[in-house]
């Protein structure tokens, strides 16, 4: 119970303290101290009604105590006079949580500021918002703890010296800055999703996605990303057979997490409806006319951002009978939106199912991704279906040379042996 509170509330408490003190290191030390005191006292005294308010109040008072002893710093912080002297509140004190504003969004935008290197953004977000320890993050990213510690220290120093703000960007800058935040969360998800030994990262990314969906409920892309992660993650148990990779068509659907799929689809509907129903007059007519509503939803999908489109694809992929033509259309929209050759490659996979391997190979051969494992493996599969076995084997071999994880390598070796 206490551990769960710690994990869930670390970001909230830290954010509030950074907002209060205006200093990352000071806030982090104060938060750590308050959580340590809670770990000592809560088991005997009970968990307070409002853990966040208790932790924030305790952290503030302890930090101010410490600052008072450091007179140079104390002189700089005029706010010290206002706080009462008691060391920490009684756990039975009732405290008003509404007095502690939720400043996690400010914290997230600070951690995912594009002036920081992406790897620093990722580490900082997991540490500050997710409440993971430096050692846990180091283990998840397969680097020595010392390296991760240096990375975090450097990032915090840059925040301070360069004046990276603890604030939510103003409206005109919000879309691009939100894009950076979502990219960090999705990167964390993919690190965990691609590797059966690191499932914790995918769960962590979903947790961050949930926080964002609470804080920015009107942003379709936020809902879209959470839906996308839930839909992909619902297949985690079926994606591996032991250490071996199982492709989507061969997966045991009974091992999919259907509650999570339903949740992802509900979020996707919300993201699309928000956009479709912007037009109030249309809404009134659409309620009487189902076809009109469907058309409005189609239009909304066509106007959607990349995460909503990807979530829509993932939702279609959970159907018993895959609607490959529709999946190909969505990948086409996504490719137009992102200009990404990797997305065009995915479209080719859908085209292979909808129109056959020859049409798909024509698309694949127009792409130039010589260092991309899945370009080679997709070509290999299409060539195999077309009966061009020697070319297929060579392409699979090239993919194998580029494969990083054990499950992928074994999968490709099996394929080569089968041809």
């Amino acid at each position: 119970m206490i551990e769960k509170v710690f994990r869930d509330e670390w970001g909230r408490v830290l954010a509030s303290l950074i907002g209060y003190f205006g200093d990352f290191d000071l806030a982090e030390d104060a938060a750590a101290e308050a959580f340590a005191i809670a770990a000592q006292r809560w088991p005997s005294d009970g968990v307070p009604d409002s853990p966040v308010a208790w932790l924030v109040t305790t952290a503030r008072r302890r930090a101010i105590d410490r600052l008072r002893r450091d007179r140079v710093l104390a002189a700089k912080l005029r706010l010290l006079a206002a706080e009462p002297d008691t060391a920490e509140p009684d756990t039975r004190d009732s405290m008003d949580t509404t007095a502690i504003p939720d400043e996690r969004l400010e914290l997230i935008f600070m951690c995912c500021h594009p002036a920081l290197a992406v790897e620093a953004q990722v580490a900082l977000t997991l540490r500050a918002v997710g409440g993971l320890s430096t050692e846990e993050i180091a283990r998840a990213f397969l680097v020595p703890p010392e390296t991760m510690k240096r990375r975090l220290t450097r990032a915090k120093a840059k925040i301070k010296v360069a004046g990276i703000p603890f604030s939510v960007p103003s409206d005109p800058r919000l879309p691009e800055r939100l894009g950076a935040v979502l990219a960090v969360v999705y990167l964390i998800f993919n690190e965990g999703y691609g590797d059966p030994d690191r499932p914790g990262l995918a769960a962590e990314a979903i947790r961050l996605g949930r926080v964002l969906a609470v804080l920015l409920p009107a942003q379709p892309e936020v809902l879209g990303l959470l839906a996308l992660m839930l839909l992909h993650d619902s297949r985690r148990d079926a994606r591996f057979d032991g250490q071996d990779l199982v492709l989507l068509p061969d997966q045991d659907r009974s091992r999919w997490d259907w509650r999570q799929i339903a949740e992802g689809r509900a979020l996707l509907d919300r993201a699309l409806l928000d956009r479709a129903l912007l037009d109030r007059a249309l809404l009134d007519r659409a309620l009487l006319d189902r076809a009109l509503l469907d058309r409005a939803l189609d239009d909304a999908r066509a106007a959607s951002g990349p995460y909503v489109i990807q979530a829509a694809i993932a939702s279609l992929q959970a159907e018993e009978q895959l609607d490959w033509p529709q999946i190909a259309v969505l990948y086409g929209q996504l490719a137009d939106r992102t200009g990404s050759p990797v997305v065009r490659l995915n479209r080719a996979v859908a085209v292979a199912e909808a129109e056959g391997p020859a049409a798909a190979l024509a698309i694949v051969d127009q792409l130039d991704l010589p260092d991309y494992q899945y370009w080679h493996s997709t070509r290999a599969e299409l060539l195999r279906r077309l009966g061009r076995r020697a070319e297929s084997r060579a392409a699979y071999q090239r993919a194998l040379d580029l494969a990083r994880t054990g499950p992928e390598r074994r999968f490709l070796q099996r394929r080569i042996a089968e041809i």
Partner: protein
Amino acid sequence: MQYALLIYSRPGATEALGDDEQEAVHRQYLELRELPGMLGGAALHPVETATTVRVLDDAVLITDGPFADTKEIFAGFYLVEADDLDQATEIAARIPAARLGGSVEIRPVVTGP
């Protein structure tokens, strides 16, 4: 906070523009100097006029220009007072060189003791 906005421009970028556009660019540089929080700055003559100095064992070595051929050359700077990096970025983004193939480097200034 104080920031130096270091302007790196692509040689010939402004000259490639039409007369009207060149004038507009010039005007935009002057307008930036009127912004609240602007503390100072300078525009520099082209790199061909530069002289490089090094001291080796008390001997002063003087050479013509910087050696390296670079795509972007340091052309000048502004010194601004801004609340934070985002505000400094907004000013930097208005510097014409940034959209004319060059770039602006934002460096926090060391202040105090």
